[in-house]
């Protein structure tokens, strides 16, 4: 019987090893371990054994069954793996074919840059104020220390609907409206982004363009604060190594006034084509709010002071993204739009 078991085991293991499919393995299971299987038949013969022989023989039969069972499972696992490997191999695709292109939308560069500028000033504690594009002369000029017939307000520069109403040539009217609404409350800390209009049309001017202006009024806001604020802006917008430089200038609504240059981010200040060899790039106009402007909107210039600044979003965008022709910004060629 022992011999018989050994012989069955050897035959079974060989057959399992040779099996090439799950079906064959199932047949083998039936043939050896099934109700009419060879090993089942051997265990049935146990009854003919003596009580002394039976336990040892029983253990041997079970051992053999386990071995065959293990061999069956192991072979089954092997076959499954091979089958899967074959299936996966058959599923191989050309990974060099192009990917499915999702439809890609894009923000306009001006809208993106406006958001970037807004975010920088929001980080510095500014709110965003908005106002109408069609403005009254009073808010656009008079309340900004530009009375009628002031030489600095050239009728040629703005688009008019009547003597009284025009397309705003800057977003400064929003500052006036904000101050008048706040009725002397401090601080006034806003930026006003938006569309503005001037009568200019060439490679560097568009009759419609975008500005962000800023205004801070509080108990004591100095020219040095303006300098520091604009430095913080320049560094966030154009890189941490930037320096800024103030140059005296004139705006009717600020005094002292300054044009602000940033050190050239293209050459680092050594001088290049972008900065016309000067190492500096003009970026915005600014100054301490003129006492008349404060007074006209209900703020006492002896009790508070402030600064204001204004920059063209087009200019910032063109500098930052290396765009040389302003007309591209309003041409809306899809290839240009897609590049941002």
């Amino acid at each position: 019987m022992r011999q018989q078991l050994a012989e069955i085991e050897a035959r079974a293991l060989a057959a399992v090893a040779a099996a090439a499919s799950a079906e064959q393995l199932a047949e083998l299971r039936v043939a050896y371990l099934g109700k009419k299987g060879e090993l089942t038949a051997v265990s049935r013969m146990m009854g003919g054994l003596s009580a002394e022989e039976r336990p040892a023989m029983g253990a041997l039969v079970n051992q053999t069954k386990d071995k065959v069972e293990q061999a069956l499972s192991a072979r089954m696992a092997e076959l499954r793996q091979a089958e899967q490997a074959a299936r996966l191999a058959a599923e191989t695709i050309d990974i060099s074919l192009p990917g499915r292109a999702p439809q890609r939308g894009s923000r306009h560069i001006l809208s993106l840059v406006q958001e970037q500028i807004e975010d920088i000033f929001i980080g510095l504690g500014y709110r965003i104020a908005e106002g109408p594009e069609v403005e009254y002369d009073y808010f656009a000029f008079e309340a900004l220390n530009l009375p009628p017939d002031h030489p600095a307000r050239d009728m040629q520069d703005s688009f008019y609907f009547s003597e009284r109403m025009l397309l705003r040539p800057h977003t400064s009217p929003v500052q006036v409206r904000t101050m008048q609404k706040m009725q002397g409350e401090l601080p006034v800390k806003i930026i006003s982004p938006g569309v503005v209009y001037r009568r200019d049309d060439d490679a560097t001017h568009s009759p419609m363009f975008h500005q962000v202006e800023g205004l801070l009024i509080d108990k004591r806001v100095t020219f040095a604060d303006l300098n520091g604020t604009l430095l913080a802006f320049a560094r966030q917008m154009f890189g941490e190594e930037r320096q800024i430089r103030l140059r005296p200038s004139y705006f009717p609504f600020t005094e002292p006034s300054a044009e602000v240059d940033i050190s050239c981010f293209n050459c680092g200040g050594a001088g290049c084509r972008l900065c016309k060899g000067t190492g500096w790039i003009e970026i915005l106009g600014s100054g301490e709010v003129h006492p008349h402007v404060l007074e006209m909107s209900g703020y006492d210039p002896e009790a508070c002071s402030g600064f204001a600044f204004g920059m063209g979003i087009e200019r910032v965008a063109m500098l930052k993204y290396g765009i040389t022709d302003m007309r591209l910004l309003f041409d809306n060629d899809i290839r240009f739009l897609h590049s941002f």
Partner: protein
Amino acid sequence: MQVSYNWLKEYIDPGVDAAELGRLYTAAGLELDEVVSRGRGLEGVVVARVLTCDPVAGSDHLHLCTVDAGRGAPLHIVCGAPNVAAGQLVACATVGATLPGGFTISEKKTMGLLSQGMLCSQKELGLADDHSGIWVLDGYFADGTAPIGMDIASALGLIDDVLVIELTPNRSDCLGMLNCAREAAALTGRPFTAPDLSYAEEGPAVAEEIEIQVEDPVLCPRYAARLVKGVRIAPSPLWMQNYLLAAGMRPINNVVDISNFVMLEMNQPLHTFDYQTLAGKQIRVRAARAGETMQTLDGKDRIFRGDEILICDAEKPICVAGVMGGMETEVTEATTDILIEAACFNPVSIRRASRRLGIPSEASMRFEKGVDVASCDLAARRAAQLLVKYCGGIADRGCVDVCAPKYANGFTERTISLRPARVNEILGTEFTAEEIAAVMRRLSFGLDELPGAMLVRIPSYRQDITLEIDLIEEVARLMGYDRIPQTLPLNESAGGRSERQKLLLRLKNLCVAQGLNETVNYSFISPRESDRLRLAGNHPWRDNLTITNPLSEEQSVMRQTLLPGLLNTTSRNQSRRNLDLRLFEIGNIFVPAAEAKAETQPEEVLTLGVVLAGGREAAWPQAAEVYDFYHMKGLLEAIFAELGTEPLTFDRANEEYLHPGRSAEVRLAGMRLGVLGELHPETAAAYELSGRVYVAELALPAALLSALAAGNRPHDLPKYPASTRDIAVIGSADIAAAAIENLIREAGAPYLRSVRLFDLYDKPPVPAGQRSLAYALQFRSDTGTLKDKEVDEAFERIVQALAENYDYRLR
């Protein structure tokens, strides 16, 4: 302002070269544009005399000249200038000389004749714009002293540097060389020397020879006149011509040049009259009368409106004050007696008159910006002095000087109190009182000490300084803006966007997420867009807010719709073969006020416009796709779903510019937001668009944005599983799909949670006029797992409702 460095040196030796002076000016707010070099690079261009000058046979304008250029034998030169003549002193470019234009002179043959040089115009030498003929140097040298053969740059003292300065409107004082020199003195610390104005007055008193009346001192606060008789009209001295040319003015004759020289020197425009032509030897300054006429010296007849200021003699207007003189009293070759006017006129009147008459000039520009009333007579004196010195005139004694009553006690100096503490408070600096006082002294401002302040006396020529803040600016400017520290303001506030602003930004990003590309189009459009859109004659979009001074008609009315901008952009892209277009814009439209629209702010309504045109090309593995109505509709639905609104609803639209069968009004909670649809083929043709183009335009009024911003969508996941059933029904194609869906939703309540159309079929075997619709339905309860029976009952209700209401049967 063009500042000649040579001229400046008449008043100050800056001790630095032109480039460095320009840098100092710029750092102080007088921005240097460029330094223009004059008279350099003219080596080989020499003073020469034309000996003979004969017409060239066979040419209608060429002359063959023999020219003594100090080179031994006379040169043969062919010259085409109309004014060439024998005996002239000229500027001759000899062989080898290179002109400023880069042209090198060589021997060449013209019409078979050898030409050994070139006689030059001022323009060819880069000295002036005059190209009417060759530059004739006669009169620059006393008889017999012409240095024939000498380089003209040294012979004529041409070498100079001109600082071109961009002046800000507040510093119009620097339209005068004296004030430029004063500024240079303040910047360099070098002494300023005012010109000596003395001269002999050998004639009778002016007051005996002319009577002056000013009717309105508001129009003319001061009118000073001096008289110089017996002058001889001739070219002005060479140095003066050089200065004028450097300043950008053309020399005319000694009297005109002196007048211009003094204007440029003192920033005080002068006018010179031929005294003998003045009727009644009277000058009256008065406002023009409406309809009055006069011939100005450009030969034009001018009709006045009534707000111009006129200078008149006893009979008639003789000059438009500050703008242009009259023909009849103009100084001519025959003039001998000159009445010099140095006046101050109302800037606003001058500005209006020069604008309206269209004759801006160096003089009117200065009056508009305001001249120094206190120094009118100094300019008259300077002019008289030069007329005596360079025109052989004899000056009358004194001056007739009519001043407004407010100047009866002379011109008082303006004083301003300046607090050093205030300076530092505004600038954020720590300048000492002594440093601040030093700045005032450098500017030649007078100073008196007060407790805690200094009283600053402002010279009359600095009209821009009227407030303490103006002086604070002077301190900042002269100390240098590089001395301003960089600090951050000491205030705390939480900045940020309003809810509305955040929502708007989100909307933009949602559009981008839908694959749309943002565009920016002009707010002003052509009035003809209404025709392209095929709008009815009484359509409200035809009644636009109109710009009175547009750059072109194409940009002359404020848009009430974003479509023209978007459609023109679409058309432009298509013409460049950009055929897959998914565009959007968010911008204002301008709805005019009902009344007085040009004087009343329009309603500005933020609006979303979308265009889909063309489609996606096949890109393996995706097939080509052409945009249709449902792309546009789905895109809008997705955006608003994402914003968390209730679903948009759609009704048939009736707009002239849209396809009547493929357009819809879009509503949200009953409020009409706008329309979407296919562009009408004729509108598409008017914009030269190819293929079907889909547009949408939705208003985003403030109320909508606030409501959206306030809204908040529940985000809990359902607790119990859903059951799904598909239903396919068939019935009349005339029933709107939305009606069927609404009915399904009603009948399936309360468990029906979603209805998704997954198939529409209207081809055989479906009979004509009918269609089959297949929906996937999802049922769910919030209180427990639904039993099959409950779902079956709901399904049955739906089947019945469809049959009863619309005669739709299960397929």
